[in-house]
């Protein structure tokens, strides 16, 4: 569902294409840049899938063929042939845009319910079926 660097990791010596018309000086990279809303709409989905918003198989114990990492803004820019500043803005705007403000209220309700459930019955309440018997009451 979430595309990642193919093969698990980009090759260590993969070249990130440089364009002379793209800013690379730090001041230009970190300034106030506003991405065009149309560009954002067009590339948002792809950038999000390549970014760290949805983290798939990053556990260090996973075998190399399974473990993945997200792509950097520079790698995404090279992959999509975009200005790196636009990629950064698309990524960051999308981070905020993934959920509306109503999600924050829903999150508060989630936490209320989860904390209440644990207080009343601990981990037992998380079982849909019967929890296993435990020799150690503290284990539940």
């Amino acid at each position, binding site marked *: 569902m979430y595309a990642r660097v193919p093969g698990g990791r980009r090759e260590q010596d993969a070249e990130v294409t440089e364009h002379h018309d793209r800013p690379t000086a730090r001041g230009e990279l*970190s300034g106030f*840049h506003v991405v065009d809303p149309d560009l954002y709409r067009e590339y948002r989905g792809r950038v999000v899938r390549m970014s760290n918003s949805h983290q798939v198989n990053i556990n260090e114990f996973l075998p190399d063929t399974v473990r993945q990492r997200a792509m950097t803004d520079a790698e995404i820019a090279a992959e999509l042939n975009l200005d790196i500043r636009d990629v950064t803005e698309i990524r960051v705007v999308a981070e905020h845009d993934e959920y509306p403000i109503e999600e924050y209220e829903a999150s508060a309700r989630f936490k209320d319910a989860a904390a209440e459930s644990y207080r009343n019955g601990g981990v037992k309440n998380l079982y849909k079926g019967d929890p296993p018997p435990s020799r150690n009451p503290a284990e539940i």
Partner: protein
Amino acid sequence: MFRVHAGLPGRALPEEAEVTEEEPDWQTVKSELLEGVLKRGAMVARVGDPDLLADVAPGQRPSDLLPQVKSMIVLGGSAPRVGEWNSPRAEVLETVGTSDRMAAIGSALARQIEERLGYYAMNVPTSTDQDDKPFLDFTAAAVAAGAGSPSLAGPVLHPEHGFVYLTVILTSLPLPFDGPIEQPACPAPSCVEMYDQRGVTPCTDVCNIDDGGCLGGQIQDGLVIGRRYDANRCRDRVYHYWVPGYQAVLEKVLSEPDVERRKMMLYGSYFTRTMWSITYSNVSQGQCFECMRVCPVGAENRMLK
């Protein structure tokens, strides 16, 4: 440690206070206090005469803050680590500041003076008062105490340590003064040499006011003359992501008619970073060090392995 008459009116003397008729040895009192803060992490500890600031802007004189003031204790220290100065990544210095450590040492000293010696003491806040003006002219206080000298770049420079964060404790404790240093740290000999050859010093070279930067000035007979300083530009660099950045983005947002473009600005990386810097203000009080990075004063202390 001496216990002396309580200087605070109406204050009950602690039972163990040693009330003495003879004048305390203020030099000993001073030595003990300053040695204590040096042990706590200050690199510089000097005492200055508050009367030397009589001519600074009204409202920023020591007596405007503490009418009973007799001494200014100026502490300096907590500069970035050598590793941070030498990092090629600007984000490092932008996010690992430790200026509040000096404030903590200053507050502890002020409390110590009041509680153990019974004299008034306050650690002057380092944040700004109304109109974005400091409560005290910290540069003048540091110069008066000999904690350093003014520089072309702006920060007070200690001859040995270079750039340090400062804090000032005003107190009614009448401590002996150290006085200004005789030989200013700026300009350094290598800066004079560079100016003679190229007409710039390291700081005016890296941040030249005639080339979009903040600094300019001349050196004549080993002294800085005609200093030029773009305070607004410097502030926007030092607070690259902080309250001024928040205000600037909000201004653009409020004048942007397109709702989608407003969203791109508010959700974008600059405003987000600005919010993080406001949130973590303690480590974000200083986001441009480029003039100090190239300054040779104290640079020999940055030659680590």
